[in-house]
């Protein structure tokens, strides 16, 4: 490894390198730990949790699109208690930061989960606000500043000393509006982007390929959207950003960092290459070294816009 300092800080949490894996693409780490030690990673965003176990959506849940995929997993997970009992102890065996990702039907559910996770001792809580709010007629929290702020406030109140990172949805007209609302409500960090709503149709059967008709787009196709949104949010708020969306190479990660991200997450790229996060990390180190940086963190926000 070149002599670039790869360590970064994300809301007071020290990551040994800026590459974490994105929620929902890495399970609770067990599967990919068969390929390499999880201690190689800066951090792990665990599969999205809900208060109670969820079965998720009917299959097909995945469709390939040009340079991307659509998924409609629907938050299948064993529930927060099962994660704390079984998933967390396993992840704790590795020298890496554990970031729990949570979704709730109501602000109260977010609060209960934060309390449980904070007691269990995760390093960070990532609050997914791209899911529908049952009370607000199914409207996604992430699309309304006041709803996003309410969830953030409740999460903060129950998370104790554990930093709360709010994960923003790109399916909005102005992402900075949500980012500001969440900052105002006390969030410690932001992560973006979640998947972009999309659809693919089989022209012969005239059926949508996904059983849920629509799903979330991720993969290389979304990288430019992620870079743009990270850049906009970086200018709008003072919170540290975990950037993600389509990262599969060091260069992609460097773009997100230059746009303002302190660290990056790798998701969909894992499906093609289980080693993608390590390749991104090494690529990033090489770029930093080539550019004569002493620390990779110097990239953050370094874009020189016209």
């Amino acid at each position: 490894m070149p002599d670039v300092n790869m360590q970064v800080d994300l809301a007071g949490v020290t990551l040994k390198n800026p590459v974490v894996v994105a929620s929902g693409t890495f399970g609770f780490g067990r599967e990919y730990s068969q390929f390499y030690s999880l201690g190689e990673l800066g951090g792990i965003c665990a599969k999205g949790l809900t208060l109670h176990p969820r079965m998720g959506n009917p299959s097909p849940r995945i469709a390939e699109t040009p340079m991307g995929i659509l998924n409609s997993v629907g938050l299948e997970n064993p529930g927060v208690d099962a994660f704390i009992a079984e998933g967390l102890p396993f992840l704790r065996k590795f020298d890496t930061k554990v970031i729990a990702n949570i979704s709730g039907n109501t602000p109260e559910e977010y609060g209960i989960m934060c309390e449980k996770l904070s007691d269990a001792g995760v390093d960070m809580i990532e609050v997914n606000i791209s899911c529908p709010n049952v009370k607000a007629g199914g409207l996604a929290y992430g699309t309304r500043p006041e709803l996003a702020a309410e969830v953030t406030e409740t999460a903060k109140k129950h998370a104790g000393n554990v930093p709360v990172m709010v994960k923003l949805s790109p399916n909005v007209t102005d992402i900075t509006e949500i980012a500001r609302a969440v900052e105002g409500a006390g969030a410690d960090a932001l992560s973006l982007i979640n998947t972009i709503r999309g659809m693919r149709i089989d022209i012969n059967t005239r059926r949508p390929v996904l059983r849920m008709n629509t799903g979330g787009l991720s993969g290389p196709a979304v990288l430019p959207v992620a870079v743009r949104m990270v850049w906009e949010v970086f200018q709008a708020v003072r919170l540290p950003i975990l950037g993600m969306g389509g990262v599969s190479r060091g260069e992609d990660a460097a773009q997100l960092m230059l746009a303002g991200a302190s660290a990056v997450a790798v998701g969909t790229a894992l499906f093609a290459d289980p080693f993608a996060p390590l390749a991104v990390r090494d690529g990033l180190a090489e770029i930093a070294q080539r550019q004569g940086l002493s620390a990779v963190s110097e990239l953050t926000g370094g874009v020189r816009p016209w």
Partner: protein
Amino acid sequence: MKVERKCKIVELNRLDPVTFWMVLEVGKMVERDGLRGGQFLHIKCGGGQLLRRPISVAYAGWDEPEDLATLIFEVRGEGTAWLSRRKVGDELDVIGPLGNGFDASQPGRYLLVGGGIGIPPLMQYGECMEWPRTAVLGFRTKDKAFPAITSRFQDHCEQTYICTDDGTLGRHGFVDAQVRDILEQDSNYTAVLTCGPRSMLKSVATAAAEFGVPCQVSMEERMGCGVGACLVCAITMKDGTVKHVCKDGPVFAAQEVDWNA
């Protein structure tokens, strides 16, 4: 242990314009990791395909300098078309061994039932399982009943029944009718092992259940990671739980699957 490795193609034969027989060098995946028929490999296909494609192992054996795995696949779309255009000597990026394969560890007699491109995952069982076995193989039409595949059953099974949808070879009709006839005469089988289209699996499972014979079905679902991390390859079980084809399967106990989901 699962590995990602470059696997050299040592054989690639065209059985017909859309069906290919490929043999790969797979390192020591058979000797060390126990790769066997009915499991699958997750293969990276070039040409702008982001996702790997799952292909079943028809046959896997120890060999020198490397173990060998036989795959038989049909061209369906761009990924499999790309695979079919490879040349002997080319290398493929492969993850394996994945999935469980059939369980034929219990001594007894087995009934193997395959339909179309679902037959290859049964080939190793037809050829070299330890116990006596009978095979029922279904094809759309005579031209699809490739001797390279059927002979592997005919040479080693006590009986091999061929059915075609159009009656051009063997019995006219679907495999489940043949399975019913066999079980009616003698239902003293340890298990039915079956792979093929979902509708076929369902009717074979129904027939096996009627005669009280345990049935193992190899299921298909679209895949992402192939290793159990992304949860996209879900199937619903009778008890209301969800299982994942890549990790818990592809072979499941038929009575546990919710066939109406």
